[in-house]
């Protein structure tokens, strides 16, 4: 997208996330830096197990045990006031911060709703926790409004989650995520369980809402074609690291990292010529025994001398003149500084 | 609001000296005051005998003593004891104010005659006729050996109440009208409270103004209540009675356990070789350590020692011991037993006794698992028998099966009781009655479990029961004792006791060795006599 996106909203710097402690730790996210600007949709792609969800949850500190954030900082820039580090917040501060500033739509909305409470209770719960001064009626109004916003008739407030279809539940979750008008919405594969028709409906609504409300989105999926269509910028993860990051059109047209290339060559196109699908040979790395050097090198068709020795840094490649893109690959070396 | 609560008084009456707490380990009861039924609450707790009264008061501790006049001022038996003429006192009144008459007595006896279910003593009544204050009751057979059942254990009920009862055996009689000094104040499954009448009783009113009968669930609860002083009078087996009960309040906690004419001992199946040999049985009797059983299994009191070789306990049986056996007591005599056995052809081979045919003598002692005193006794018997080389094993049987097997004669040896009564007749009858002799496999519920086959004994039993004079009785009894001693159809160990555990903290006047005026057991027919003897302690 062409708007000038300069004001950062969330700056992730050198984030490390581990599962487990000490020697048993699995380093699921390594040294990841990523900035999300106001009003921007950032896509996060990468194959299963590359650490996308871990990154998202790590930022919000919602990792399931034994996950621990093992380093780095996450700086949040509120619309007014001083920026602060999310990772240093106390539990109480964190509770206040959550949902009001950043909300999350989880992978699999099926399980995100409490099966024993009606939709209205769950929506109003969130509102009440953050705006306790609001009357019950006002809260109910807000809940209704949110449902309408996501295209569900307000009488469904009275329904239990199991009485809604998967798509409706997903929309309820999105509505709930927007109820407090947060600055950032993190969406973890919100549509993988749905079929394409439903997926498009929901994403369409989301885009529309974003234009109206102006929040930023961190959108996670491994479906690159979806991301290319929907996001402004895409970061591609492999083996716990971001290996490439660029505006989506650039990535689609001209992927730099061989892994990005492989990803793009893995899904069949519906329209146009039938192109050759090569895929990515080999299997994903084991997080416990990461290959030395570039984690992708054992599967990389273009690997050469330094790949298995040194880890390439993520940075603006010297050989590329376009704007704002970074890559971590020895094919596109980065000069420090 | 609680002013009219029935419990307020009970709680506030601090003056404890008017109340006597009595207990029995019967479990929760239901409101059933039918005085004839052993299943009634009154019978289980014993208070039927303070509401209803018999004609005469019999002292089981001294069974040969003459009975005390009670509702009858006198009882005269005919010579062969088939009929009795009783004179009813004229000052007795029912608790509803009506007078007690000879008609009531005759009615009661006919009621019992006509309803077999009410006749728990099995008294063969034929008729009861009234003439003035006298009632003549006639019986099918001589009642010498069961006089007490005939006139001291049938509660007299008011005709004007019971003639209206259509089915006396299923009458629960919730509002009992009796001639005794107490009436029921309240009934709960756990406790029945009785209060003394304030007028109309034919003799001096008791000093115990209120009786509380509590039914505890089991012996342990009962014992604990006794030890704690919650309960002042009961009849229960208390192991190690000194520590468990007496020492808790040595000054007041008392046990008095006089024996009656009913004994416990080891029945031996006399049909099984080699135990069909009387010598072997006698030898076994010689080595059993009754003192051990008495102190260890029976806590030193519960089944008083039977010392006399005739099996008759002292003092209840003293009067009946024949001259031949007077002063002859059991004592452990292992050497004597060995000699006796050797003379009869048995050989002691190392630790094993071999019978004349050369087979080792072994036997199984059985009793139901739950009867811990019997089980302990058997353990001791087992150890005792080992001293003469008899290898016994103890089998903890199932109660039902045990009953069936013992009655059917399918056992080697078992501890069991005999009937008890006013004469030694019941003891000997239970052990040796040829009329009860059934083939192995057929039940003989009334006795002779060991299948003891002696025509002489049977004849002597019949002669004793039907005798018309003391001399004949004495001869018959001597014969019975001789057979019992020489053939040892059963090895007596202890007697039934008719005593109880009580506390003198609040009440004195209990029967004791010095003044054995009655049985100290709350469920006996003479319980009322005991209560009437009680005085507040100083």
């Amino acid at each position, binding site marked *: 997208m062409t708007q000038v996106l300069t004001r*950062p909203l969330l*700056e*992730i*710097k050198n984030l490390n996330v581990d599962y487990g*402690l*000490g*020697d048993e730790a699995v380093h699921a996210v390594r040294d990841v*830096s*990523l*900035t999300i*600007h106001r009003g921007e949709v950032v896509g996060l792609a990468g194959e299963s197990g590359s650490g996308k969800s871990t990154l998202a*949850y790590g930022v919000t*500190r*919602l990792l*399931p*045990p*034994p*996950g*621990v*954030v*093992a*380093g*780095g*900082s996450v*700086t949040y820039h509120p619309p007014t006031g001083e*920026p602060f*580090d999310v*990772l*240093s917040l106390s*539990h109480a501060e964190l509770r206040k911060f959550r949902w009001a500033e950043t909300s999350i739509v989880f992978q699999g909305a099926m399980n995100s709703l409490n099966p024993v409470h009606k939709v209205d209770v769950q929506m109003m719960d969130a509102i009440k926790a953050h705006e306790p001064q609001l009357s019950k009626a006002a809260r109910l109004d807000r809940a209704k409004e949110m449902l309408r916003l996501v295209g569900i008739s307000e009488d469904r407030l009275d329904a239990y989650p199991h009485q809604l279809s998967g798509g409706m539940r997903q929309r309820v979750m999105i509505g709930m995520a927007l109820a407090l008008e947060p600055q950032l919405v993190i969406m973890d594969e919100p549509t993988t369980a749905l079929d394409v028709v439903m997926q498009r409906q929901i994403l369409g609504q989301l885009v529309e809402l974003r234009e109206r409300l102006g929040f930023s989105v961190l959108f996670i999926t491994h479906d690159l074609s979806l991301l290319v269509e929907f996001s402004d910028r895409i*970061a591609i993860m492999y083996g716990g690291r*971001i290996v490439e*990051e660029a505006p989506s059109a650039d990535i689609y047209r001209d992927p730099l990292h061989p892994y990005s290339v492989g990803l793009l060559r893995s899904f069949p196109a519906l329209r146009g010529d039938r192109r050759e699908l090569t895929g990515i040979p080999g299997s994903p790395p084991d997080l416990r025994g990461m290959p030395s050097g570039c984690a992708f090198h054992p599967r990389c068709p273009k690997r050469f001398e330094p790949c298995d020795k040194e880890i390439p840094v993520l*940075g*603006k490649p010297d050989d590329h003149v376009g704007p*704002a893109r*970074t890559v971590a690959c020895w094919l596109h070396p980065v000069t420090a500084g | 609001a609680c002013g009219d609560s029935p419990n307020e008084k009970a709680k506030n009456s601090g003056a404890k000296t008017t109340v006597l707490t009595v207990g029995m380990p019967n479990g929760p009861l239901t409101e059933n005051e039918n005085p004839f039924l052993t299943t009634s609450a009154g019978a289980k707790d014993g208070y039927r005998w303070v509401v209803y009264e018999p004609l005469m008061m019999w002292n089981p501790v001294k069974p040969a003593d003459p009975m005390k006049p009670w509702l009858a001022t006198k009882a005269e038996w005919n010579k062969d004891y088939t009929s009795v003429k009783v004179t009813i006192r004229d000052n007795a009144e029912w608790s509803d104010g009506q007078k007690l008459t000879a008609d009531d007595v005759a009615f009661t006896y006919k009621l019992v005659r006509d309803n077999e279910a009410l006749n728990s003593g099995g008294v063969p009544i034929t008729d009861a006729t009234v003439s003035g204050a006298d009632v003549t009751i006639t019986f099918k057979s001589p009642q010498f050996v069961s006089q007490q059942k005939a006139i001291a254990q049938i509660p007299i009920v008011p005709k004007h109440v019971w003639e209206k009862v259509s089915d006396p055996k299923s009458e629960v009689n919730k509002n009992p009208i009796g001639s005794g000094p107490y009436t029921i104040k309240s009934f709960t499954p756990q406790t029945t409270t009785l209060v003394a009448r304030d007028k109309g009783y034919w003799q001096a009113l008791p000093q115990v103004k209120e009786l509380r009968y509590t039914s505890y669930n089991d012996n*342990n609860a009962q*014992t604990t209540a006794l*030890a704690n002083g919650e309960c002042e009078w009961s009849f229960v087996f208390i*192991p*190690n009675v000194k*520590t*468990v009960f007496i020492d808790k309040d040595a000054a007041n906690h008392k046990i008095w356990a006089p024996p009656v004419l009913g004994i416990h001992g080891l029945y031996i199946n006399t049909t099984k070789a080699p135990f069909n040999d009387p010598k072997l049985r006698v030898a076994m009797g010689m080595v059993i350590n009754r003192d051990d059983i008495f102190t*260890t299994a029976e806590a030193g009191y519960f089944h008083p020692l039977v010392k006399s070789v005739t099996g008759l306990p002292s003092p209840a049986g003293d009067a009946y011991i024949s001259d031949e056996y007077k002063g002859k007591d059991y004592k452990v005599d292992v050497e004597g037993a060995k000699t006796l056995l050797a003379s009869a052809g048995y050989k002691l081979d190392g630790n094993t006794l071999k019978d004349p045919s050369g087979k080792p003598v072994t036997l199984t002692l059985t009793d*139901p*698992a*739950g009867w*811990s*005193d019997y089980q*302990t006794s058997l*353990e*001791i018997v087992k150890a005792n028998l080992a001293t003469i080389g008899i290898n016994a094993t*103890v*089998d*903890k049987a*199932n*109660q*039902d*099966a045990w009953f069936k097997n013992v009655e059917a004669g399918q056992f080697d040896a078992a501890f069991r009781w005999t009937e008890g009564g006013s004469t030694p007749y019941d003891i000997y009858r239970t052990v040796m009655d040829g009329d009860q002799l059934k083939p192995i496999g057929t039940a003989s519920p009334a006795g002779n479990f060991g299948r003891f086959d002696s025509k002489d004994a049977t004849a002597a039993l019949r002669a004793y029961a039907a005798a018309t004079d003391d001399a004949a009785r004495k001869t018959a009894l001597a014969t019975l004792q001789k057979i019992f001693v020489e053939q040892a159809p059963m090895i007596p160990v202890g007697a039934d006791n008719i005593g109880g555990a009580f506390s003198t903290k609040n009440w004195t006047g209990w029967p004791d060795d010095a003044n054995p005026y009655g049985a100290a057991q709350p469920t006996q027919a003479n319980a009322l006599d005991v209560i009437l003897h009680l005085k507040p302690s100083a």
Partner: protein
Amino acid sequence: MTATPSSIEQVIPGQGAMAQPDVTPAGKKAKRRRFRFIANGKATTGLVILAIYVLFAIIGPWVAPFDPDKITSDVLQAPSAKHWFGTSHLGQDIFSQILAGTRSVVMVGAIAGIVATVLSILVGVTAGYLGGVIDEILSVLSNVFLVIPGLLLIIIICTSLPRVNDLTVALVIGLTSWSWGSRVLRAQTLSLRQRDYVEASRATGEKTWRIIFFEILPNLTAIIASGFVGTVIFAVLSEITLAFIGISSVSSWNWGTILFWAQGQQALAQGAWWWFVPAGLAIAILGTALSLVNFGIDEFVSPRLRTSGHGPKRTSTGEKVRMKVGFTPVIRPVEPTGTIDMKDGATR
């Protein structure tokens, strides 16, 4: 693990299985799984104690210092160097009685556990897999057994048998206490039956009995195991209770018999605590050991109970970290600088 029993029939067999979630081990190593079970501290403690009991069950009667039946003159003695647990009213050595009684207890527990487990598998799994009329019939059957109060049924059966020995007691307990397990197994089987792999093996052409025994049963192992442990506890308690209330007429020693004698002689009221306490403790420790094993099984079945273990953990640098759902701990090796470099970022 259900119907957590109200009171006295303390252990309902299979109680431990109620709350068990899915049995599919989500991506955990199966082989290591087995060792993990052992590695579980609780389970190990339980197993070690059990092993000691089993050892005494085997050698107990031989190593007992005295003949447990032997009547001596050392009546009602407090524990001493000679009589470790004191003596009974007949001067019998209580320590020897406990040792001699272990065998019966362990045997009855094991046999009853096996019988009940086998029955519950037969009934529960069959009903769950086959469904339909067979299911209805078997369900009624197990419900009937559930409805009849177990301990009382056992009492009734034991009183009605002419001869009762350890084996009969064990069989009676086993035959009357399978219904809970069968219910749990049936419910599990019902859900397993709908698993794709069961359907898939059918589509491969497997026969019904093979599906039941080779596809479904192995997946129930953990539930079966904890049901077994539960039944064993129940059986031991029942056996002891039966002996205690004088129902079972076992001629050999078991701890219930000891308690029966102690109670019959009012050991506690007499102050002879040594007569009462050791047997009770022996039972309680055995029960606890079995429960510990059960915990082990539970935790090993449910990955969720397993993950993150207990209590605070330590990092390699020795910091204490408490895992908490919803609030991921942050451990940063270096304190982040207070100032944030605004120009630095991924957009460069």
